[in-house]
């Protein structure tokens, strides 16, 4: 069992921030856990994203609203969504 101290959490957050290719992932995480934050985002998305440190490229990407493009931009491999096995017997 790993016991987390506050310093562990902070160091994990710092490590996370350092390792990310963009501020976009960080913003998506914040928006995913806080529905209240989505309101100002929806009201003036470009301003909101600029304040969050997103690049012009990222702002255009998000404004396009295409999840496939966002997924491709963030990179990494993600398997297709079929994890159930069909019993053919």
């Amino acid at each position, binding site marked *: *069992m*790993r*016991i*987390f101290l506050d310093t562990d959490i902070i160091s*994990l*957050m710092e*490590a*996370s921030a350092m*390792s*990310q290719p963009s501020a*976009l*992932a960080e913003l*998506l*995480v914040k*928006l*995913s*856990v806080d*529905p209240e934050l*989505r309101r100002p*985002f929806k009201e003036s*998305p470009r301003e909101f994203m600029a304040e969050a440190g997103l690049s012009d490229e990222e702002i255009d990407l*998000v404004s396009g*609203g*295409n*999840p496939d493009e*966002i*997924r491709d931009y*963030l*990179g*990494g*491999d*993600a*398997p*297709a*969504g*079929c*994890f*159930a*096995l*069909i*019993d*053919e017997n």
Partner: protein
Amino acid sequence: MNQGSLVVVGTGFLIAGQVTPEALASMRAADRLFFLVAEPATRIWLESQHPLAESLHDVFWEGRPRQAAYDEIVERLLAAVRQGQEVCAAFYGHPGVFVYSSHEAIRRARAEGFTACMFPGVSAEDCLFADLEVDPAADGCQSFEGTDFLIRARIFDPHSALVLWQIGALGVNTYHLRDLWNAEGLAILVETLRRHYPAEHPAVIYEATHYPICDPLIQRTTIAGIPGCRVTTHSTLWVPPIAKAPLDIAMARQLGLSL
């Protein structure tokens, strides 16, 4: 009981937004965190939650039989458990819904004398009920894996709602990188559904959103229109009831209901 344990959790569909507190605590407390998620922001977030977070995505490659991939996942989890580690495995969605490896890993871990359990998560069907604003209690709801529905000629009641999962992978047991694994299968599905519904009966092709900035993909169509929609391996089909089921008046009276 042997040392080493397995906890299986779900991450839902919205990066960190649908992760339950018990799932998060389990992920953080584990010696090893394995995960299988469907988009990169969730991966990035999970890697920030545990220094030894390890993706299982590399078990999949083009053309590989999915049984082999799922078995490899089970083996990887159990290998860590056998080393005496407290292992957490996180799957996107609900970890016990349409995830062969999670159930099999728990079964085998217990058979080998280890502690193993699963915590519920938010499934695609849960998101569907919320996003389509439909209540499975209204007319009942039948849920089948798409291929299973076809090859076993499942008997169902069209007076209840019908949910078919994995309609983008009908009859396919290998893994592929493309979005839709079997377009021809959709035509066969429509042909089967047409025995129970008129061609113009409504249907919805649904995909939960992974991003809080994007809407879920909700394509409202008809039974006949299904093959013309964008269907992927993430798509779920929702077919509303054809009509209200007739009442069994005698049964209602037997239950003391005044109708």
